[in-house]
Protein backbone atom coordinates (compact mmCIF):
# COMPACT_ATOMS: atom_id res chain seq x y z
CA UNK A 1 0.00 0.00 0.00
CA UNK A 2 2.73 2.41 0.97
CA UNK A 3 4.70 1.38 -2.05
CA UNK A 4 1.89 2.04 -4.48
CA UNK A 5 1.32 5.38 -2.86
CA UNK A 6 5.00 6.19 -3.46
CA UNK A 7 4.60 5.18 -7.06
CA UNK A 8 1.56 7.35 -7.39
CA UNK A 9 3.41 10.25 -5.85
CA UNK A 10 6.34 9.81 -8.20
CA UNK A 11 4.04 9.80 -11.20
CA UNK A 12 2.20 12.80 -9.92
CA UNK A 13 5.39 14.74 -9.39
CA UNK A 14 6.91 13.74 -12.72
CA UNK A 15 3.71 14.55 -14.54
CA UNK A 16 3.49 17.89 -12.88
CA UNK A 17 7.06 19.11 -13.13
CA UNK A 18 8.85 17.21 -15.83
CA UNK A 19 6.48 16.80 -18.72
CA UNK A 20 6.69 19.83 -20.89
CA UNK A 21 4.01 20.86 -23.31
CA UNK A 22 5.40 22.34 -26.52
CA UNK A 23 4.10 23.32 -29.93
CA UNK A 24 6.32 22.23 -32.80
CA UNK A 25 5.86 23.51 -36.33
CA UNK A 26 7.49 22.06 -39.43
CA UNK A 27 7.65 23.99 -42.69
CA UNK A 28 9.39 24.43 -46.01
CA UNK A 29 9.00 20.73 -46.86
CA UNK A 30 10.01 19.27 -43.48
CA UNK A 31 6.38 18.48 -42.75
CA UNK A 32 6.67 15.77 -45.41
CA UNK A 33 9.00 13.88 -43.05
CA UNK A 34 6.36 13.71 -40.33
CA UNK A 35 3.14 12.56 -41.95
CA UNK A 36 2.64 15.87 -43.79
CA UNK A 37 1.41 17.40 -40.55
CA UNK A 38 2.71 20.91 -39.95
CA UNK A 39 1.79 21.62 -36.36
CA UNK A 40 2.37 19.12 -33.56
CA UNK A 41 1.29 19.67 -29.99
CA UNK A 42 3.55 17.47 -27.90
CA UNK A 43 4.52 16.55 -24.36
CA UNK A 44 8.23 16.00 -23.92
CA UNK A 45 9.93 14.59 -20.86
CA UNK A 46 13.47 15.73 -20.09
CA UNK A 47 15.95 12.87 -20.40
CA UNK A 48 17.72 11.09 -17.56
CA UNK A 49 15.61 12.85 -14.96
CA UNK A 50 17.13 16.23 -15.75
CA UNK A 51 15.13 19.15 -14.45
CA UNK A 52 15.23 21.13 -17.65
CA UNK A 53 14.86 20.53 -21.34
CA UNK A 54 17.27 21.97 -23.88
CA UNK A 55 17.04 22.04 -27.68
CA UNK A 56 19.58 19.24 -27.97
CA UNK A 57 17.22 16.90 -26.09
CA UNK A 58 14.25 18.10 -28.09
CA UNK A 59 16.01 17.38 -31.40
CA UNK A 60 16.73 13.79 -30.47
CA UNK A 61 13.17 13.44 -29.16
CA UNK A 62 11.79 14.76 -32.47
CA UNK A 63 14.02 12.46 -34.44
CA UNK A 64 12.82 9.42 -32.50
CA UNK A 65 9.18 10.32 -32.12
CA UNK A 66 8.08 12.50 -35.02
CA UNK A 67 10.33 11.98 -38.03
CA UNK A 68 8.95 9.07 -40.00
CA UNK A 69 11.27 9.05 -43.01
CA UNK A 70 14.58 10.39 -44.32
CA UNK A 71 15.94 11.69 -40.97
CA UNK A 72 19.05 12.90 -42.82
CA UNK A 73 16.89 15.65 -44.33
CA UNK A 74 16.34 16.95 -40.82
CA UNK A 75 19.51 16.24 -38.91
CA UNK A 76 23.24 16.02 -39.51
CA UNK A 77 25.25 14.80 -36.51
CA UNK A 78 23.55 15.92 -33.33
CA UNK A 79 22.15 19.14 -34.74
CA UNK A 80 19.84 20.17 -37.58
CA UNK A 81 21.09 19.87 -41.10
CA UNK A 82 22.59 23.09 -42.53
CA UNK A 83 19.74 24.88 -44.25
CA UNK A 84 17.17 24.12 -41.58
CA UNK A 85 16.06 27.22 -39.76
CA UNK A 86 15.11 26.99 -36.09
CA UNK A 87 12.97 29.59 -34.34
CA UNK A 88 12.09 29.41 -30.65
CA UNK A 89 9.13 31.69 -29.89
CA UNK A 90 9.70 33.49 -33.20
CA UNK A 91 13.34 34.14 -32.40
CA UNK A 92 16.26 32.64 -34.32
CA UNK A 93 17.89 30.04 -32.06
CA UNK A 94 21.29 31.61 -32.87
CA UNK A 95 20.35 34.27 -30.35
CA UNK A 96 19.35 31.90 -27.59
CA UNK A 97 22.27 29.49 -27.66
CA UNK A 98 21.28 27.00 -30.39
CA UNK A 99 21.52 23.46 -28.96
CA UNK A 100 21.78 24.83 -25.43
CA UNK A 101 18.60 26.89 -25.66
CA UNK A 102 16.53 25.89 -22.66
CA UNK A 103 12.86 25.39 -23.25
CA UNK A 104 9.89 26.27 -21.11
CA UNK A 105 6.31 25.14 -20.90
CA UNK A 106 4.20 26.27 -23.89
CA UNK A 107 7.19 27.33 -26.00
CA UNK A 108 6.70 27.30 -29.76
CA UNK A 109 9.55 25.78 -31.79
CA UNK A 110 9.55 26.17 -35.58
CA UNK A 111 11.70 24.19 -38.03
CA UNK A 112 11.80 25.42 -41.62
CA UNK A 113 13.83 23.83 -44.38
CA UNK A 114 15.22 26.33 -46.83
CA UNK A 115 16.56 23.67 -49.15
CA UNK A 116 13.39 22.84 -51.03
CA UNK A 117 12.29 24.50 -54.22
CA UNK A 118 12.91 28.07 -55.30
Amino acid sequence: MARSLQCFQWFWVSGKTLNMQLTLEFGGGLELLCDSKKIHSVNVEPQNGADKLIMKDLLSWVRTNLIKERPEMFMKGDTVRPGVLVLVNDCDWELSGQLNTSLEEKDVVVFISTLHGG
Partner: protein
Amino acid sequence: MQEVGTNPKRSSGRMCCICNQRRAALKRTKTLEQICKECFYDVFEEEIHQAIVSNQLFKPGQRIAICASGGKDSTVLAYVLSTLNKRYNYRLDLFLLSVDEGITGYRDDSLETVKRNEIQYGLPLKILSYKDLYGWTMDEIVKMIGLKNNCTFCGVFGRQALDRGAALLEVDKVVTGHNADDIAETVLLNILRGDIARLSRCTSITTGQFIALFSTIIGFCLLQTLDRLATYAYFKKLDYFSTECIYSPNAYRGFAREFIKDLERLRPRAILDIIKSGENFRISTTMKMPEQGTCERCGYISSQKWCKACVLLEGLNRGLPTLGIGRNRGSVNGRKNSEETKGGKSIESKGCGTLDF
Protein backbone atom coordinates in the same frame (compact mmCIF):
# COMPACT_ATOMS: atom_id res chain seq x y z
CA MET B 1 14.18 45.38 -19.14
CA GLN B 2 11.26 46.04 -21.42
CA GLU B 3 9.61 42.89 -22.62
CA VAL B 4 7.67 42.65 -25.82
CA GLY B 5 5.91 39.60 -27.20
CA THR B 6 3.91 36.90 -25.52
CA ASN B 7 6.63 34.67 -24.23
CA PRO B 8 10.07 36.25 -24.45
CA LYS B 9 13.03 34.02 -23.74
CA ARG B 10 15.29 35.00 -20.94
CA SER B 11 18.42 34.06 -22.83
CA SER B 12 17.57 36.22 -25.82
CA GLY B 13 16.21 39.21 -24.02
CA ARG B 14 18.58 41.52 -25.90
CA MET B 15 17.17 44.56 -27.56
CA CYS B 16 17.31 45.31 -31.26
CA CYS B 17 20.54 47.08 -32.30
CA ILE B 18 18.66 49.41 -34.63
CA CYS B 19 15.54 50.59 -32.78
CA ASN B 20 16.58 49.58 -29.28
CA GLN B 21 12.88 49.20 -28.45
CA ARG B 22 11.91 45.67 -29.35
CA ARG B 23 13.36 42.28 -28.56
CA ALA B 24 15.92 41.06 -31.11
CA ALA B 25 14.67 38.13 -33.19
CA LEU B 26 17.60 37.33 -35.48
CA LYS B 27 21.09 38.26 -36.62
CA ARG B 28 21.76 40.17 -39.81
CA THR B 29 23.87 38.06 -42.13
CA LYS B 30 26.01 40.97 -43.22
CA THR B 31 26.81 42.61 -39.93
CA LEU B 32 25.77 39.99 -37.37
CA GLU B 33 23.83 42.73 -35.58
CA GLN B 34 20.89 41.49 -33.55
CA ILE B 35 17.70 43.02 -34.83
CA CYS B 36 13.96 42.75 -34.23
CA LYS B 37 11.32 41.61 -36.71
CA GLU B 38 10.15 45.09 -37.67
CA CYS B 39 13.68 46.35 -38.32
CA PHE B 40 14.44 43.15 -40.22
CA TYR B 41 11.53 43.89 -42.59
CA ASP B 42 12.78 47.46 -43.03
CA VAL B 43 16.37 46.42 -43.71
CA PHE B 44 15.31 43.60 -46.04
CA GLU B 45 12.96 45.74 -48.13
CA GLU B 46 15.27 48.73 -48.10
CA GLU B 47 18.19 46.66 -49.49
CA ILE B 48 16.01 45.56 -52.38
CA HIS B 49 14.77 49.10 -52.95
CA GLN B 50 18.34 50.40 -53.02
CA ALA B 51 19.36 47.72 -55.53
CA ILE B 52 16.43 48.69 -57.77
CA VAL B 53 17.19 52.40 -57.55
CA SER B 54 20.96 52.22 -57.89
CA ASN B 55 20.78 49.85 -60.87
CA GLN B 56 17.91 51.81 -62.41
CA LEU B 57 16.04 48.60 -63.04
CA PHE B 58 12.68 50.14 -63.86
CA LYS B 59 11.19 53.28 -65.34
CA PRO B 60 7.80 54.70 -64.36
CA GLY B 61 4.93 53.30 -66.39
CA GLN B 62 6.72 50.10 -67.46
CA ARG B 63 4.89 46.81 -67.72
CA ILE B 64 6.77 44.29 -65.59
CA ALA B 65 6.22 40.54 -65.49
CA ILE B 66 7.30 38.86 -62.27
CA CYS B 67 8.18 35.23 -62.86
CA ALA B 68 6.23 33.24 -60.33
CA SER B 69 6.99 29.62 -59.67
CA GLY B 70 5.16 29.49 -56.35
CA GLY B 71 8.48 28.97 -54.57
CA LYS B 72 9.81 31.27 -51.88
CA ASP B 73 12.09 33.38 -54.08
CA SER B 74 9.39 34.41 -56.47
CA THR B 75 6.75 34.74 -53.76
CA VAL B 76 8.98 37.05 -51.74
CA LEU B 77 9.90 38.96 -54.93
CA ALA B 78 6.25 39.44 -55.90
CA TYR B 79 5.31 40.51 -52.39
CA VAL B 80 8.24 42.90 -51.93
CA LEU B 81 7.93 44.42 -55.42
CA SER B 82 4.25 45.10 -55.05
CA THR B 83 4.88 46.57 -51.58
CA LEU B 84 7.73 48.80 -52.82
CA ASN B 85 5.73 49.80 -55.89
CA LYS B 86 3.09 51.24 -53.57
CA ARG B 87 5.44 52.60 -50.93
CA TYR B 88 7.83 54.43 -53.27
CA ASN B 89 5.34 55.01 -56.06
CA TYR B 90 7.37 53.30 -58.82
CA ARG B 91 4.20 53.46 -60.95
CA LEU B 92 4.87 50.02 -62.41
CA ASP B 93 2.24 47.86 -64.02
CA LEU B 94 3.06 44.53 -62.34
CA PHE B 95 1.74 41.07 -63.08
CA LEU B 96 2.71 37.44 -62.52
CA LEU B 97 4.03 35.14 -65.25
CA SER B 98 4.21 31.39 -64.68
CA VAL B 99 5.69 28.71 -66.87
CA ASP B 100 4.00 25.33 -66.78
CA GLU B 101 6.65 22.74 -67.67
CA GLY B 102 4.11 19.94 -67.48
CA ILE B 103 5.53 18.10 -64.48
CA THR B 104 2.78 16.15 -62.76
CA GLY B 105 2.96 16.19 -58.99
CA TYR B 106 5.13 19.30 -58.92
CA ARG B 107 4.16 22.10 -61.22
CA ASP B 108 0.45 21.46 -61.07
CA ASP B 109 0.58 21.86 -57.30
CA SER B 110 2.83 24.91 -57.33
CA LEU B 111 0.58 26.62 -59.88
CA GLU B 112 -2.20 26.40 -57.32
CA THR B 113 0.00 28.45 -54.98
CA VAL B 114 0.59 31.04 -57.69
CA LYS B 115 -3.16 31.24 -58.27
CA ARG B 116 -3.61 32.02 -54.58
CA ASN B 117 -0.83 34.65 -54.79
CA GLU B 118 -2.72 36.24 -57.69
CA ILE B 119 -5.59 36.93 -55.31
CA GLN B 120 -3.45 37.71 -52.22
CA TYR B 121 -1.32 40.37 -53.93
CA GLY B 122 -3.90 41.52 -56.46
CA LEU B 123 -1.55 40.89 -59.39
CA PRO B 124 -2.98 39.39 -62.61
CA LEU B 125 -1.52 36.00 -63.61
CA LYS B 126 -0.59 34.60 -67.03
CA ILE B 127 0.44 30.96 -67.47
CA LEU B 128 2.48 29.68 -70.44
CA SER B 129 3.01 25.98 -71.02
CA TYR B 130 5.86 24.03 -72.64
CA LYS B 131 3.18 22.01 -74.40
CA ASP B 132 1.87 25.12 -76.17
CA LEU B 133 5.29 26.60 -76.86
CA TYR B 134 7.24 23.49 -77.85
CA GLY B 135 4.72 20.70 -78.24
CA TRP B 136 6.33 18.66 -75.42
CA THR B 137 5.73 18.52 -71.69
CA MET B 138 8.65 17.76 -69.35
CA ASP B 139 6.93 14.49 -68.41
CA GLU B 140 7.04 13.45 -72.08
CA ILE B 141 10.65 14.58 -72.45
CA VAL B 142 11.75 12.61 -69.38
CA LYS B 143 9.91 9.55 -70.68
CA MET B 144 12.02 9.79 -73.82
CA ILE B 145 15.46 10.82 -72.49
CA GLY B 146 15.46 9.60 -68.91
CA LEU B 147 16.65 11.42 -65.81
CA LYS B 148 20.17 12.30 -66.84
CA ASN B 149 20.02 15.45 -68.92
CA ASN B 150 16.43 16.47 -68.35
CA CYS B 151 17.36 19.63 -66.47
CA THR B 152 19.26 20.86 -69.54
CA PHE B 153 16.05 20.75 -71.55
CA CYS B 154 14.05 22.40 -68.83
CA GLY B 155 16.60 25.18 -68.31
CA VAL B 156 16.95 26.02 -71.99
CA PHE B 157 13.23 25.84 -72.70
CA GLY B 158 12.37 27.76 -69.55
CA ARG B 159 14.58 30.71 -70.38
CA GLN B 160 13.12 31.04 -73.86
CA ALA B 161 9.60 30.54 -72.59
CA LEU B 162 9.99 33.63 -70.40
CA ASP B 163 11.22 35.68 -73.30
CA ARG B 164 8.52 34.47 -75.64
CA GLY B 165 5.94 35.04 -72.93
CA ALA B 166 7.21 38.58 -72.55
CA ALA B 167 6.70 39.20 -76.26
CA LEU B 168 3.24 37.68 -76.14
CA LEU B 169 2.19 39.83 -73.22
CA GLU B 170 3.98 42.95 -74.51
CA VAL B 171 5.94 43.58 -71.34
CA ASP B 172 8.98 45.80 -70.96
CA LYS B 173 10.84 43.66 -68.49
CA VAL B 174 10.70 40.23 -66.95
CA VAL B 175 11.97 39.85 -63.40
CA THR B 176 13.08 36.56 -61.92
CA GLY B 177 13.87 36.31 -58.22
CA HIS B 178 17.04 34.65 -57.00
CA ASN B 179 18.44 34.25 -53.55
CA ALA B 180 22.07 34.80 -52.70
CA ASP B 181 22.64 31.05 -52.24
CA ASP B 182 21.57 30.38 -55.84
CA ILE B 183 23.90 33.01 -57.23
CA ALA B 184 26.81 31.74 -55.12
CA GLU B 185 26.10 28.19 -56.36
CA THR B 186 26.10 29.44 -59.93
CA VAL B 187 29.45 31.17 -59.44
CA LEU B 188 30.94 27.92 -58.11
CA LEU B 189 29.38 25.79 -60.83
CA ASN B 190 30.66 28.09 -63.56
CA ILE B 191 34.15 27.87 -62.08
CA LEU B 192 33.93 24.07 -61.88
CA ARG B 193 32.71 23.86 -65.45
CA GLY B 194 35.25 26.43 -66.62
CA ASP B 195 32.41 28.36 -68.22
CA ILE B 196 34.05 31.75 -68.34
CA ALA B 197 31.43 33.42 -70.49
CA ARG B 198 28.76 32.69 -67.93
CA LEU B 199 31.00 33.34 -64.95
CA SER B 200 31.51 36.90 -66.11
CA ARG B 201 27.83 37.62 -66.39
CA CYS B 202 26.18 35.45 -63.77
CA THR B 203 26.50 37.98 -60.96
CA SER B 204 25.40 40.99 -62.98
CA ILE B 205 22.07 42.14 -61.69
CA THR B 206 20.52 43.33 -64.92
CA THR B 207 21.13 40.39 -67.20
CA GLY B 208 21.67 37.62 -64.71
CA GLN B 209 22.17 34.40 -66.56
CA PHE B 210 19.70 35.43 -69.19
CA ILE B 211 19.97 36.87 -72.63
CA ALA B 212 16.68 37.93 -74.05
CA LEU B 213 15.53 39.02 -77.44
CA PHE B 214 12.14 40.58 -76.93
CA SER B 215 12.50 42.05 -73.50
CA THR B 216 15.00 42.55 -70.75
CA ILE B 217 15.03 39.64 -68.42
CA ILE B 218 16.31 40.70 -65.07
CA GLY B 219 17.72 37.86 -63.04
CA PHE B 220 17.16 39.85 -59.94
CA CYS B 221 19.17 38.75 -56.96
CA LEU B 222 17.21 39.56 -53.85
CA LEU B 223 20.59 39.92 -52.13
CA GLN B 224 19.38 37.80 -49.27
CA THR B 225 20.54 34.38 -48.21
CA LEU B 226 18.00 31.57 -48.33
CA ASP B 227 17.85 31.53 -44.54
CA ARG B 228 16.84 35.15 -44.35
CA LEU B 229 14.46 34.82 -47.28
CA ALA B 230 12.73 31.90 -45.58
CA THR B 231 12.62 33.80 -42.28
CA TYR B 232 11.04 36.77 -44.03
CA ALA B 233 8.49 34.55 -45.75
CA TYR B 234 7.68 32.81 -42.47
CA PHE B 235 7.33 35.99 -40.39
CA LYS B 236 5.22 37.63 -43.09
CA LYS B 237 3.15 34.44 -43.38
CA LEU B 238 3.66 34.38 -47.15
CA ASP B 239 2.05 31.46 -48.93
CA TYR B 240 4.68 29.52 -50.85
CA PHE B 241 5.18 26.05 -52.23
CA SER B 242 8.17 24.07 -51.06
CA THR B 243 8.42 20.73 -52.77
CA GLU B 244 11.55 19.91 -54.71
CA CYS B 245 11.06 19.30 -58.43
CA ILE B 246 10.53 15.57 -58.79
CA TYR B 247 13.16 15.39 -61.53
CA SER B 248 15.89 17.41 -59.87
CA PRO B 249 17.56 15.03 -57.36
CA ASN B 250 19.89 14.04 -60.15
CA ALA B 251 20.97 17.57 -60.87
CA TYR B 252 24.59 18.57 -60.42
CA ARG B 253 23.60 21.73 -58.55
CA GLY B 254 22.67 19.75 -55.44
CA PHE B 255 26.34 19.12 -54.62
CA ALA B 256 27.24 22.80 -54.81
CA ARG B 257 24.23 23.61 -52.66
CA GLU B 258 25.25 21.20 -49.95
CA PHE B 259 28.78 22.58 -49.98
CA ILE B 260 27.61 26.17 -49.69
CA LYS B 261 25.33 25.34 -46.80
CA ASP B 262 28.24 23.77 -44.92
CA LEU B 263 30.35 26.87 -45.58
CA GLU B 264 27.58 29.11 -44.35
CA ARG B 265 27.45 27.30 -41.05
CA LEU B 266 31.15 27.98 -40.49
CA ARG B 267 30.87 31.55 -41.60
CA PRO B 268 27.46 33.14 -42.31
CA ARG B 269 28.90 35.72 -44.71
CA ALA B 270 30.50 33.07 -46.94
CA ILE B 271 27.62 33.16 -49.40
CA LEU B 272 27.70 36.91 -49.87
CA ASP B 273 31.48 36.76 -50.19
CA ILE B 274 31.37 34.16 -52.96
CA ILE B 275 29.07 36.45 -54.94
CA LYS B 276 31.45 39.35 -54.32
CA SER B 277 34.32 37.22 -55.63
CA GLY B 278 32.23 36.33 -58.68
CA GLU B 279 31.62 40.02 -59.34
CA ASN B 280 35.32 40.75 -59.08
CA PHE B 281 36.46 38.21 -61.66
CA ARG B 282 37.90 39.99 -64.65
CA ILE B 283 38.08 38.28 -67.98
CA SER B 284 41.37 38.82 -69.76
CA THR B 285 40.85 41.04 -72.80
CA THR B 286 42.87 38.71 -75.00
CA MET B 287 40.33 36.01 -74.34
CA LYS B 288 38.06 35.26 -77.27
CA MET B 289 34.44 35.29 -76.21
CA PRO B 290 31.68 33.65 -78.22
CA GLU B 291 29.88 36.10 -80.47
CA GLN B 292 26.18 36.64 -80.14
CA GLY B 293 24.19 36.11 -83.30
CA THR B 294 20.68 34.96 -84.01
CA CYS B 295 19.30 31.50 -84.56
CA GLU B 296 18.65 30.76 -88.23
CA ARG B 297 15.59 28.81 -87.33
CA CYS B 298 13.63 30.86 -84.81
CA GLY B 299 15.45 34.19 -84.68
CA TYR B 300 16.28 33.87 -81.00
CA ILE B 301 19.67 35.09 -79.73
CA SER B 302 22.30 32.40 -80.18
CA SER B 303 26.06 32.11 -80.37
CA GLN B 304 25.67 29.18 -82.78
CA LYS B 305 23.88 28.66 -86.09
CA TRP B 306 20.86 27.28 -84.27
CA CYS B 307 19.88 28.24 -80.75
CA LYS B 308 20.08 25.61 -78.03
CA ALA B 309 16.31 25.26 -77.76
CA CYS B 310 15.98 24.55 -81.50
CA VAL B 311 18.79 21.97 -81.37
CA LEU B 312 17.19 20.22 -78.41
CA LEU B 313 13.75 20.37 -79.97
CA GLU B 314 15.05 18.99 -83.27
CA GLY B 315 16.61 16.13 -81.32
CA LEU B 316 13.34 15.34 -79.61
CA ASN B 317 11.30 15.52 -82.77
CA ARG B 318 13.74 13.34 -84.73
CA GLY B 319 14.01 10.82 -81.93
CA LEU B 320 17.68 11.68 -81.26
CA PRO B 321 17.35 13.26 -77.84
CA THR B 322 21.09 13.42 -77.07
CA LEU B 323 21.56 15.96 -79.85
CA GLY B 324 22.93 19.16 -78.34
CA ILE B 325 23.68 17.78 -74.91
CA GLY B 326 26.96 18.14 -73.10
CA ARG B 327 30.00 19.47 -74.90
CA ASN B 328 28.82 18.15 -78.18
CA ARG B 329 27.29 21.23 -79.68
CA GLY B 330 25.58 18.95 -82.17
CA SER B 331 26.02 18.14 -85.80
CA VAL B 332 23.43 20.77 -86.66
CA ASN B 333 25.92 23.47 -85.88
CA GLY B 334 28.57 21.74 -87.96
CA ARG B 335 31.09 21.08 -85.21
CA LYS B 336 32.61 17.79 -84.35
CA ASN B 337 32.67 16.60 -80.81
CA SER B 338 36.26 15.46 -80.83
CA GLU B 339 37.59 18.77 -82.05
CA GLU B 340 36.02 20.54 -79.21
CA THR B 341 37.16 18.30 -76.42
CA LYS B 342 40.78 17.80 -77.38
CA GLY B 343 41.42 20.87 -79.48
CA GLY B 344 41.89 23.07 -76.44
CA LYS B 345 40.60 26.11 -78.28
CA SER B 346 37.08 26.23 -77.01
CA ILE B 347 35.99 28.29 -74.07
CA GLU B 348 35.18 25.23 -72.02
CA SER B 349 38.63 23.76 -72.16
CA LYS B 350 40.58 26.92 -71.60
CA GLY B 351 40.34 26.51 -67.88
CA CYS B 352 41.09 28.97 -65.17
CA GLY B 353 44.63 29.82 -66.27
CA THR B 354 43.46 32.68 -68.41
CA LEU B 355 41.57 34.42 -65.66
CA ASP B 356 43.10 37.38 -63.97
CA PHE B 357 41.80 38.65 -60.69
